[in-house]
């Protein structure tokens, strides 16, 4: 396609993707508590409000804590599983891989409802830690996929070389395997972290009435009208996601993580 047409097409998609964010960023710097665009006056006070307003700060802290612990849990589940599937021939163990991918492929409301019925039946409904386990399971797909890719990228002769040089299985794991999959582990963690921060329905169905995460807080605020903090929080989240994925791209091979061949192959 001609360069001008190509540019135009890409620009249109870029505008479509950016427009809502630009508008939200615009209204987030309004001086007064109005929903107007272009903004009237300029103020960063609504950004300050995320941290000074008690309820918004609490929601932010809840979300950050949930995302960190859920990402840790998801990685802890995915790492031994991906390692086992790489190291051993055990066809039936692929069932676990299927289980790990299922929550992400099914419509989220199903997983959410599953957790709701389960935690209610188990008598733990509304406990803060149920959200961590729920998110950890819901997003386990992501580190499972990045780690499976990571293991597949390890040349098996490296492991053999290490063992001929006197490294036991445990030493090989510590000195060769873990350093080589670290970028994949970190990106798996980052993916869960960002998605958990933004997740609404599972959090809502597990702890929606007892703990406010930021998405829940935004939705609740949305139902009662408009507060500019919604806008500033949204922009803050977009920036955070872009920052984290930017870091993943900087220190890892993002195209490969997303399915391209590695850069030295192509």
């Amino acid at each position, binding site marked *: 396609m001609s360069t001008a047409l190509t540019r135009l097409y890409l620009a249109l998609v870029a505008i479509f993707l950016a427009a809502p964010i630009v508008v939200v960023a615009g209204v987030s710097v309004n001086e007064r508590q109005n929903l107007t665009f272009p903004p009237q006056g300029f103020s960063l006070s609504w950004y300050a409000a995320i941290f000074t307003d008690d309820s918004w700060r609490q929601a932010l802290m809840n979300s950050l804590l949930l995302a960190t612990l859920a990402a840790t849990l998801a990685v802890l589940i995915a790492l031994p599983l991906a390692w086992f599937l790489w190291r051993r021939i055990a066809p039936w163990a692929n069932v676990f891989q299927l289980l790990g991918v299922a929550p992400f492929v099914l419509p989220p409301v199903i997983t959410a409802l599953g957790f709701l019925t389960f935690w209610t039946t188990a008598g733990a409904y509304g406990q803060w830690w149920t959200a961590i386990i729920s998110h950890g399971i819901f997003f386990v797909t992501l580190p499972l996929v990045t780690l499976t890719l990571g293991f597949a990228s390890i040349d098996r002769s490296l492991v053999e070389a290490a063992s*001929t*040089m*006197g490294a036991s299985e445990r030493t090989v794991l510590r000195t060769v395997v873990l*350093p080589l999959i670290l970028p994949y582990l970190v990106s798996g963690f980052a993916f869960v972290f960002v998605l958990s921060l933004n997740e609404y329905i599972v959090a809502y169905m597990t702890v929606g009435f007892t703990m406010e995460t930021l998405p829940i807080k935004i939705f609740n605020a949305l139902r009662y009208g408009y507060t500019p903090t919604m806008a500033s929080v949204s922009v803050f989240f977009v920036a955070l996601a872009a920052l984290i994925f930017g870091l993943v791209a900087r220190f890892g091979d993002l195209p490969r993580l997303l399915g391209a061949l590695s850069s030295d192959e192509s």
Partner: protein
Amino acid sequence: MTGLALKAITKKFGDFKAVDHVSLDVPQGTFVCLLGPSGCGKTTLLRMIAGLEEPSSGQVVVDGRDITATPTHKRDFGMVFQSLALFPHLNVGDNIAYPLRIRGASKAEQSGRVDELLKLIHLPDFAKRPVAKLSGGQRQRVAIARALAISPRLFLLDEPLSALDAKLREAMQVELRQLQQQLGITTIVVTHDQREAMTMADLVVVMGEGRIRQAAPPVEIYRRPADSFVAGFIGSTNLIAVESDSIGRVTALGTALPDVAMVDGARMATLSVRPEDVQITAPGEGVLAGTVTFVRDLGGTIETFVDVSGTTIVAVTTPRDRSDLAAGQKVGVRIPAQSAVVLKS
């Protein structure tokens, strides 16, 4: 007893015998080349020596001790892999120091040994370089240095030079041989390149279909191949069907070859003669009568293809000997008895 002994080693993958009843004695300090076409079981044999594969039966004995059940990491061997298997997350120095580090050697000990080895492979001051920045030959040497870091009891190399271009490969063959002699270490190299084997080895072990076809010093393998498989695999050769006539003389393509002895008890056999041993003469008594079909002049050598009753015999000569042959010419082919080997068919 020192060195390596393989005792009746067999490796089966399902019904397929990758290695079939292999026994071999390797004296201390010997340089062995396992040579054969791909799929002959040579790499599987090497991996069993290293402990990376478990033999289906048989024993691996090193310095008189049966180590068949010893896990790889407790064998104290050094091995160079076909892919070289340098750790991409470690620099040159840390790669070489790896076997020392995991054995708990002190930092000073490690860096001393690394410097020593880098000097040995002619790459001093390379310790801090990332592995990815090395050339093919440099990576090769680093892999060798790493395998030698602990002064292993056995030095194993799996097609170590196959990734290098032809020139560099020949230079590395010489270098590797010199290094081995300097260290006096028992070394086993897997290769499919017969020139490589001839250059480096004290003992060439030719394998085919999982079995040892012949194990002997290079010159003997070349001069006295044990069978037509070995003769065909090592260098190029002419294989000619021969039979003994009623009075016990050996005849080839209808012409009697005096002084050539038949293999015991056989009537039919195969005669192997190297192209450089074949002499082209004028047609006449005691020589095979043939017609030149093609002459390939390579500058340094001339290959003459002669058709003798349907069998093509190749002779290699230098331009000084005969340069006046042309296709269609009637010639005589003389096979000197001392350079012909009769092999069981």
